[in-house]
C-alpha cells in the first residue's frame, strides 16, 4: 500500500484489520509516556516481536511529539487521536491531529550523515520516524494530518 494510494481513504480499515484501541492525547509532552504504554500493549496483544514493537513505540512517540511541538494548530484544546490496527501483515498505528499539512514522508530533511556532521541538536525525529518502521504513510484531509506507522510481524 503506497502512501499515495492510501491518501484517497485516510483512516480506512484494511480488509481483515482489527482495531486494538484508541488513545486521545492532549497537546502536552507529558502525555507521551501514556501513549508509549498504549502502543506497547497493542504490540503485545498482536504478538509483535519485541524489537519491532520497540521501534514502533518510538516512531509513534516521535510522530506525536512532533505534532505537539510543531504541528497542532491548537495544542491547548486540540487532541491527538492515536489508534492501533492489526492485520495479518502486522500492526499499524494512526496518529491524527488538526494542523497545517505536514507530510513526514516527504518533508525536506537533512540525511543522517549531514545532520550528524553538522553536530545538529535537532532533526533526529523525522529521521527516526523514517527509519524505525517498515512503512510510513501520510494523508491530509479537511485540516487533519494522519501519519500511519506500520510494523511488520516479520520484522
Amino acid at each position, binding site marked *: 500500500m503506497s502512501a499515495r494510494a492510501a491518501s484517497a481513504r485516510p483512516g480506512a480499515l484494511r480488509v481483515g484489520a482489527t482495531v486494538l484501541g484508541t488513545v486521545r492525547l492532549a497537546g502536552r509532552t507529558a502525555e*507521551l509516556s501514556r501513549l508509549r504504554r498504549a502502543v506497547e500493549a497493542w504490540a503485545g496483544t498482536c504478538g509483535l516481536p519485541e524489537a519491532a514493537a520497540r521501534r514502533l513505540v518510538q516512531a509513534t*512517540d*516521535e510522530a506525536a511529539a512532533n505534532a505537539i511541538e510543531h504541528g497542532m494548530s491548537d495544542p491547548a484544546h486540540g487532541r491527538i487521536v492515536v489508534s492501533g490496527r492489526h492485520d495479518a501483515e502486522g500492526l499499524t498505528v494512526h496518529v491524527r491531529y488538526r494542523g497545517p499539512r505536514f507530510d513526514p514522508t516527504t518533508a525536506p530533511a537533512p540525511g543522517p550523515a549531514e545532520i550528524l556532521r553538522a553536530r545538529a541538536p535537532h532533526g*533526529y525525529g523525522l*529521521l527516526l520516524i523514517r527509519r524505525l518502521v517498515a512503512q510510513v504513510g501520510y494523508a491530509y484531509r479537511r485540516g487533519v494530518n494522519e501519519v500511519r506507522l506500520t510494523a511488520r510481524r516479520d520484522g
Partner: protein
Amino acid sequence: MSHFSVSFSRLGAARVLALSGDLDAHTAPEFEAALAACLAEGGAQIVADGSGLTYVSSAGLGVFMAMLEPARAAGGDIVIAALPERVFETFDLLGFPEVFRFAPSAAEAAALFGDISAGETAAAGAPAAGEAP
C-alpha cells in the same frame, strides 16, 4: 507522566550525571538544564551514566549533541556510559558513535578523563558511587 531523574556525583575529576527512566520530549529539558548547570559550575568533564535509562527519544539525543561542543570548548567532553543495549540502539541508528565516546561503565568513562587508572576504575564497580579513591 514520564519517570525520569538526574542525580549528580563525582568520580575523580569527572562529574557523573546518572540518568534514570525515560528521556523523551517531556523530560529532555530537565536533562538539558542539568547539563547546563554542570557546565555553569565549571564541570566540563562529564559522564552521562545511562545505566538506568529505559528510553531515549530524538529530543534526548539532541540534548547530548547540543551540549557536546560547549563541553569540548571548555576543555572537557561528554562520555556516555553503561547504556542498556536497547537504548544504545537508538544512538547507534543515527551514527552517534562517530561523534561521542561510549564506555561500558561510568568508572571506565571517568577514566577516559585520565584522572584515575583503568585498574582502579575496574575495581570501583558500581557506577556513580561518589568520589573515586
